[in-house]
């Protein structure tokens, strides 16, 4: 049981390049989330999904797209990277219902855009 796995762990992009971050979870969770972590700002929600085939915008969605074609995978795409997207990206998942549902996080992807 690996939990939430993110790939890659590190990436350096040049401005204008594109890339996709992959999040995979093996806990059969319905809900998945992408956050970015920046110093002094905590974690901010980019996009999320409440089930296979669904996506929704979070607090800071501009410049990102997501897809949830399979229940276990949640992809985050950057079509044209900008230096402002230099950050650490965390994926998380949870199962709805049964009262409190804490989020389970991946190890993060450290992205630098030059």
């Amino acid at each position, binding site marked *: 049981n690996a939990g939430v796995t993110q790939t890659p762990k590190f990436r350096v992009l040049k401005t204008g390049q594109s890339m996709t971050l992959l999040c995979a979870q093996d806990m059969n969770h319905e809900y998945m*989330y992408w956050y970015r972590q920046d110093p002094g*700002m*905590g974690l901010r929600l980019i996009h999320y999904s409440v089930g296979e085939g669904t996506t929704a915008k979070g607090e800071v969605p501009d410049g990102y797209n997501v897809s949830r074609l399979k229940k276990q995978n949640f992809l985050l795409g950057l079509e044209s990277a900008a230096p402002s997207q230099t950050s650490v990206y965390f994926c998380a998942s*949870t199962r709805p219902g049964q009262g*409190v*549902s*804490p989020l389970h996080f*991946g*190890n*993060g992807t450290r992205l630098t855009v030059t």
Partner: protein
Amino acid sequence: AQRVTQPEKLLSVFKGAPVELKCNYSYSGSPELFWYVQYSRQRLQLLLRHISRESIKGFTADLNKGETSFHLKKPFAQEEDSAMYYCALSGGINNDYKLSFGAGTTVTVRA
């Protein structure tokens, strides 16, 4: 709207001293409050949830709805407690279980 405020960015204490991390929130409904901890270059881990009323690694947190606070406390800090701590709020099913995080408090415990 849901909002979480952690007023202290940095907190430095000596080993064996008490430590308290402040967290205040605003939310119109009935919130679910959490504390997450992130050790150096690791993933965020759930430390406490208010509904469980438990003590984890010596830490406790009490939800005070009157003061809209959820402060984290530990009577005797240890060096291994050095980490980043995030207070987080969830609106539960009404808000798709989305978590709103505070800016975080970096705790350094000195020997």
